[in-house]
């Protein structure tokens, strides 16, 4: 698949994306025309005040939600014209998603939760187990494979959710506040993990965060205000942490 527009290496291109929740009197415009282009291999931090539309744009990028208008190209293919199954296959094969609220299956062990995306990819059992264990180990949860979400702390659940998103080795990892529930030590570990995934596996990462410290790990910081991209700049290496 190839892109034909200005930036040939653009993996994701959003143009004029709007999102309106509800209708009539209760209608609320969460996104007011978002233009955003992301190249393969980038590590992008999405920042902005609460309610500025960060999660909304992540959901649209993750094909979990559909925009009200605008165009979304993934590897040059228009996602907004895809049908449900095509979008599901896009999720299955290219995307990993870490939800703001984890969204793990209850009464299901960490291992089984992490295996689930592989199951839908039709991987054989042995391969599934091995990959799921490795992913859990990567997020520092070896030994916790058999625990169900109810038996895990918020931070541990967060890490299971990350393991589930990276177990398929996706082209793009979309993480909505992956460190929101973690202490700073754990947060640093997760950031280092993401950095490693980005560098070594070449996974493109989009991460929502409120913390400048965490955003500093990214190459690029996109600021949302009021449903629009307010600023979009490369992380100044020397100013990291401000």
């Amino acid at each position, binding site marked *: 698949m190839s892109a034909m527009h200005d930036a040939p290496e653009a993996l994701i291109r959003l143009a004029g994306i709007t999102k309106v929740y509800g209708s009539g009197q209760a209608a609320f415009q969460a996104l007011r025309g978002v233009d955003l282009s992301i190249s393969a291999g980038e590590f992008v931090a999405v920042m902005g005040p609460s309610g500025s539309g960060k999660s909304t744009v992540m*959901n649209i990028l*993750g094909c*979990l*939600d*559909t925009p009200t208008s605008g165009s979304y190209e993934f590897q040059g293919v228009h996602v907004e014209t895809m049908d*449900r*199954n095509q979008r*599901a*296959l896009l*999720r*299955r*094969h290219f*995307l990993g*998603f870490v*939800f703001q609220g984890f*969204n*793990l*299956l*209850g*009464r*299901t062990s960490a291992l*089984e939760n992490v295996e*689930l*995306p592989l*199951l*839908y*990819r*039709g991987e054989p059992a042995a391969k599934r187990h091995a990959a799921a264990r490795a992913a859990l180990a990567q997020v520092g949860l070896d030994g916790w494979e058999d625990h169900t979400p109810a038996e895990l702390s918020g931070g541990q659940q967060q890490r299971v959710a990350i393991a*589930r998103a990276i177990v*398929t080795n996706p082209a793009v990892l979309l993480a909505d506040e992956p460190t929101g529930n973690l202490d700073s030590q754990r947060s640093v570990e997760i950031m280092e993990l993401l950095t490693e995934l980005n560098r070594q596996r070449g996974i493109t990462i989009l991460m929502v965060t409120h913390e400048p410290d965490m955003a500093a790990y990214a190459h690029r910081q996109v600021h949302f205000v009021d449903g629009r991209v307010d600023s979009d700049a490369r992380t100044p290496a020397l100013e990291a942490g401000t």
Partner: protein
Amino acid sequence: MIWNTLLLALREIRRNLLRSFLTILGIVIGVAAVITMVTLGNGATQSISDQVSSLGSNLLMVRPGQRMGPGGSAGAPMFKLADVQAIATQVSGIKAVAPETRKAVSVVVGARNWSSVATGSTRDYFTAAGWTLSAGRIFTEAEARGGQAVCVIGATLQRELFGGGDPLGESMRVADFSCQVIGVLAAKGQSAFGSDQDDTIVMPIRTVQRRLTGDPDVRTILVSANDSNATEAVKVRVETLLRERRKIGANEDDNFNVLDTKQIAQTLSTTTRIMTTLLGAVAAVSLLVGGIGIMNIMLVSVTERTREIGIRLAIGALEHEVLLQFLIEAVVLSSLGGLIGVALATGASIGLSSLMSIPYLFDPGINLLSFGISALIGVVFGFFPARRAARLDPIDALRHE
């Protein structure tokens, strides 16, 4: 993919054991109730028609009095042997005619005694009443004419008085005379009215009249028609003849009645069939209630399930894969419930029918039907809520509250 989906469905059932159990329970009870009721009803119907036909085939029972039952014969003249003779010679289409005069007696053999009923009749009685012998012989014409003290006993007497051993040639004390056993009747079992048909002694009618009743009356005349379709016609002919012989005027009512056992059989089996249908209907309601229970459980868990569906869709499941999983889950659960129900019903039916001493008749139709209905209920109530959820955008399913 199917295999994986099956695996997922089974895993989900195991994971939610309580919910699965409750889902199954309604179906188990409903299916078991329907099958048990219908099976027992069929058994009862069968047993009643067996018993009625054991009275004798195409049998008419003629009794004095306007109606059957106690007091029905008050004031009406009894029959005589001549009436029996007249029917035998003047009514066409009959296989056998026999008088019947019965008397309750106590019977003693050695140290054992037993209360039974002595039936006096002719050789034709065995044909008319449908008796066969398991041992020995019936009385001869000469013995009958001479009023000899010979008797043919039922299986119950053989068991109670002779300990099941060979009674042929033995003597029994019947009331105040001694009677020689010459034959044993093959067992018939209980009658349609619950009495033991094998608790009987048959002897020549002269013997009973002389030694037990002391009068020449015939209490009942048994008429066996040649053909089961001819019983109506034979009945009319017998009535005409008897009205003539008893000198009943054209505008007077009969002072006797003729009972057609086929009619009893039909009435009884119609009654039990109605009962079976009613019980089946009640049981069907319980199956329905079971179905509503399932629906309830499915709806209660719909929030949780909708979120689960949202998660599965979000990590790359296709709509039809999620649906297949839920479909398999619903089918597995309800067929499991159906199977347990069928097993339970089989056990209960066998147990209850032996308790009620009716035959156990396996009815494949009702088993298949209730199994099918249970599967259908499970699929409908398990599948449709899931289908609604799987059609949402993943994010809407995840937000479902």
